[in-house]
């Protein structure tokens, strides 16, 4: 690969790697060749003819398409001759024959390659007197993308993206000759999870953003490089804002994370940022009603009440819930407030102490990526255990597909549902929630070669693949490692990795945008910042010196325990909504003496609070976030609502600490980031300058090992051991991309895409219970019931019922009530 060839472009000698395309070689040499169909991330097709250049060959000079032609040694290329210019002018004239002059009303106007190249390489006049071709205009190909067939220049970029990256050929060219149009296949809308990328790729205004339609002009927006917060991949994005409002989000290139792709949720679901429902002032409960107050009054009330509770019941009667959606700074300040000022380890987040995670996350996303002409992936086999990248981490899904299709990566899937990625060749191992450990056991046996004794064909095949592989990667998620069996699953997976041999690694991927950072900041009941155990003397001494206090050594309650426990008197809830998860938790929140909720929107939990503090979201405040591969990335402040009195999370806790008598040395968010670099050894040196706009991954060696120590006790875990006869189905739950969560639901245009309030059954089960698709049903467990619509899909295995989390009006928590496995029955209403 390192082999170079030398060629001459415009009388200048350049040396580029062999197999480079001429158009890329010219770019490296600083020579611009105009293109429409060619794109560095897509396979060459050579259909627009814009890139013709003069190449000297054995039979004289010829015009060649530089986007399909690899460089050759000693090649002589000219891009600035009279003939090249004539051809460029003629080609542009040809492309513009049918392109309507819609520029004033076209969203691409101002950042349109066709506009720019017409100005640079065009003739300057039009020779066309005939009428232009007419085709469908402003025609929705999905809820989020508008197609204008008249503007299309037939460059194939959208078609190629959906084929080469998404592996879902949902767009195609129809008709012939002058009538050729791009269109969806047989009226089926484009539903690929990352379909929005075709808007960025389109070199004209044929594909435009329906959510941000007419909301911006490229020359009047402010562009802030940021990162996406919807999942833990941490895709790099750019936030375009105007008049204090977020107008649109586009992808930003980071070859270590997302290439340049982002998913549709990240691109379009930003309606909540400027929603009217946002909390804008602190609320204090007076005479039973939440009333707007000044910050000083709200903070003084909390400080007084918390000090009273601490004195009366002890520090361990106070707890806090952080969130994987909040920045490192916010979580760090909350955690320091609890440990340093209140003096308790009662701090956790959802999917925190209850999940047996590994501290280091994915080794590196880039290991899965195969750039166009770059190296092959550094992984040869991937086992997905209880993770559904298509719904949970769409850009990881994209990388995986590319790795399978182009890098020859073998895929093994173990999931309670037959997830979308099972369409690729490879063993699929089905299990029911709670049966994870026996499954991994049988896999380990298969790897060790004792498969004849047990395991089905799929397990044998998977075992064979794992034992053959040299660089396998096992990825598991919170769904597989929750609750009491979590540490067991982790242990078994590590054993499996050992059995599979040298080079096999286990990786845990969290789901929330800052799931990894939340752990790194120590928002865990049994871990200090840096994920050090509470009894790690060195870490403890470092933090005590830094914070000037003594730290409690006894582990705190986990998320679940805090909500189940009757001993809690006060709770700080930051960016979490436990009241919507379980009716029992909602009731226990009512019994608290003090409930402080810091959130963006009025949630069910906020309605129960004594004090509600308005927080700023990721777009409004500066912060750093850590993605699933430990990459710390910075999201600068992009918008600010001048009418809102909301404050960033870190600032709220600084002021609260001051009210309670602690003097923290913070002046701004930068100083919080700075302190994190001292408190967490892995983050040493990761200040804003070092992070830049591409972030930095912290070294895996800096993490402590994932030794077992999980909270105290397991209070309130429902056994879920009801009779199989009464409740014949095993409940499967999990995350879907388009759920009913508040951050998704507030983007009106996407309502049609949301997963409805449904329970999905296997066709065989549906027939047994006399349920058809669309019939109203009641799902019942021994904890509660839920009224939903039935759906039938063979992807759901027999004997299970699939209800995703956070569906609008169908909280699956009503059935689970805090447990992780549950048996249910489905009856027609």
């Amino acid at each position, binding site marked *: 690969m390192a082999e170079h060839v030398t060629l001459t472009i415009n009388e200048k000698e350049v040396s580029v790697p062999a197999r480079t395309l001429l158009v890329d070689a010219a770019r490296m040499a600083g020579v611009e060749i105009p293109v429409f169909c060619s794109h560095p991330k897509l396979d060459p097709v050579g259909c627009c003819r814009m890139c013709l250049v003069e190449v000297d060959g054995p039979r004289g000079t010829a015009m060649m398409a530089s986007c399909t032609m690899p460089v050759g040694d000693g090649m002589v290329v000219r891009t600035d001759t009279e003939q090249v210019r004539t051809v460029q002018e003629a080609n542009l004239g040809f492309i513009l024959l049918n392109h309507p002059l819609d520029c004033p*009303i076209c969203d691409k106007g101002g950042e349109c390659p066709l506009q720019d190249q017409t100005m640079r390489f065009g003739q300057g006049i039009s020779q066309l007197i005939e009428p232009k071709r007419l085709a469908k205009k*402003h025609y929705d190909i999905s809820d989020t993308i508008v197609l204008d067939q008249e503007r299309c220049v037939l460059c194939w970029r959208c078609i190629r993206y959906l084929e080469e990256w998404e592996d879902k050929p949902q767009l195609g060219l129809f008709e012939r000759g002058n009538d050729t149009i791009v269109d969806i296949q047989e009226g089926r809308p484009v539903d690929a999870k990352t379909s929005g990328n075709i808007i960025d790729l389109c070199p004209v205004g044929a594909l435009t953003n329906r959510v941000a339609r*007419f*909301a911006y002009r490229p020359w*009047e927006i402010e562009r802030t490089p940021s990162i996406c917060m919807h999942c833990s991949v941490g895709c790099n994005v750019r936030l375009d804002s105007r008049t204090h409002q977020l107008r649109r989000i586009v992808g930003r290139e980071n070859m270590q994370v997302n290439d340049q792709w982002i998913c549709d949720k990240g691109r379009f679901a930003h309606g909540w940022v400027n929603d009217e429902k946002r909390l804008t002032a602190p609320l204090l409960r007076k005479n039973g009603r939440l009333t707007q107050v000044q910050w000083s009054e709200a903070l003084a009330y909390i400080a007084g009440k918390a000090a009273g509770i601490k004195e009366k019941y002890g520090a361990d009667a106070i707890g806090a819930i952080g969130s994987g959606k909040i920045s490192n700074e916010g979580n760090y300040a909350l955690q320091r407030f609890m440990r340093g000022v209140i003096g308790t380890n009662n701090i956790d987040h959802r999917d925190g102490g209850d999940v047996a995670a590994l501290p280091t996350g994915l080794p590196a996303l880039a290991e899965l990526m195969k750039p166009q002409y770059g190296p092959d992936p550094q992984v040869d086999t991937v086992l997905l255990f209880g993770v559904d990248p298509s719904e949970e981490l769409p850009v990881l899904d994209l990388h995986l597909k590319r790795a399978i299709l182009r890098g020859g990566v073998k895929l093994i899937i173990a999931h309670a549902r037959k997830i979308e990625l099972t369409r690729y060749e490879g063993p699929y191992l089905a299990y029911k929630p709670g049966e994870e450990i026996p499954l991994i056991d049988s896999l380990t046996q298969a790897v060790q070669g004792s498969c004849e004794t047990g395991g089905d064909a799929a397990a044998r095949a998977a075992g064979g693949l794992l034992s053959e592989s040299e660089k396998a990667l096992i990825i598991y998620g919170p769904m597989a490692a929750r609750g009491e069996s979590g540490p067991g699953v982790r242990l078994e997976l590590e054993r499996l990795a050992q059995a599979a041999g040298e080079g096999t690694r286990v990786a845990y991927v969290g789901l929330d945008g800052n799931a990894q950072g939340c752990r790194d900041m120590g928002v865990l009941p049994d871990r200090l910042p840096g994920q050090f155990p509470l009894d790690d003397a060195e870490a403890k001494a470092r933090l005590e010196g830094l914070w000037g206090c003594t730290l409690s050594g006894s582990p705190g309650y986990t998320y679940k325990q805090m909500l189940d426990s009757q001993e809690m008197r006060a709770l700080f809830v930051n960016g979490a909504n436990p009241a919507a998860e379980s009716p029992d938790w909602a009731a226990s929140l009512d019994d608290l003496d003090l409930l402080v909720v810091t959130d963006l929107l009025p949630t069910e939990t906020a309605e129960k609070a004594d004090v509600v503090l308005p927080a700023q979201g990721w777009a409004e405040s500066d912060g750093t976030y850590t993605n699933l591969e430990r990459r710390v990335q910075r999201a600068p402040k992009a918008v600010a609502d001048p009418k809102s009195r909301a404050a960033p999370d870190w600032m709220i806790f600084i002021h609260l600490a001051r009210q309670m008598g602690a003097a923290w040395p913070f002046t701004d968010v930068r100083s919080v980031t700075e302190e994190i670099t001292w408190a967490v050894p892995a983050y040493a040196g990761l200040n804003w300058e070092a992070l830049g706009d591409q972030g930095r991954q912290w070294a895996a060696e800096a993490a402590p090992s994932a030794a077992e120590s999980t909270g105290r006790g397991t209070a309130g875990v429902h056994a879920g051991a009801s009779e199989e006869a009464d409740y014949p189905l095993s409940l499967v739950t999990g995350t879907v991309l388009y759920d009913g969560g508040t951050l998704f639901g507030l983007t009106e245009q996407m309502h049609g895409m949301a997963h409805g309030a449904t329970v999905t059954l296997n066709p065989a089960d549906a027939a047994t219970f006399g349920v058809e698709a669309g019939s109203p049903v009641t799902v019942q467990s021994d904890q509660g019931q839920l009224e939903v619509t039935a759906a039938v899909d063979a992807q759901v295995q027999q004997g299970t019922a699939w209800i995703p989390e956070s569906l609008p009006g169908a909280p699956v928590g009503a059935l689970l009530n805090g447990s992780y496995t549950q048996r249910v029955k489905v009856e027609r209403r």
Partner: protein
Amino acid sequence: MEFGDFLKGASEIGKAMGVTLKHLRQKPVTVEFPHEDIPIYPRFRGRHELRRYANGLERCIGCCLCEAACPTEAIYVEAAENDPDAPLSPGERHAKVYELNLLRCVFCGDCEEACPTEAIVLGHDFAMANYERKDFVLTKEQLLNPGMPRVIIRPE
């Protein structure tokens, strides 16, 4: 002082008095505004107007080019999609908000130049005094319904 200088001065004074005396015989140029109309040239650049097509549709398509051309950032446009059943302008796009700040405007006419549909034009109204600062921000409604200015267009 030379005699020549004296003669030169006297002739200058005589010339000046000539002008004065000539105007004694003419009617005064003072116009009794606002009781009388003021004569202006056709290309006079006064208060802005947004125009409509003959069928009543607004010419403005909310393209924001006037906003981009404006050297003093006096114009603010917010575009929106037309309801196909009740469009405000031809095509897909119209201006939801069109605001023009007369305190910022320098009446250069660049907005007129930039407009692809000849929607925004500088009219002939120059009587723009107001009592409140906020009244100097013209809304789309005000721009679409300009009053009749008290002017006489005189030939160029």
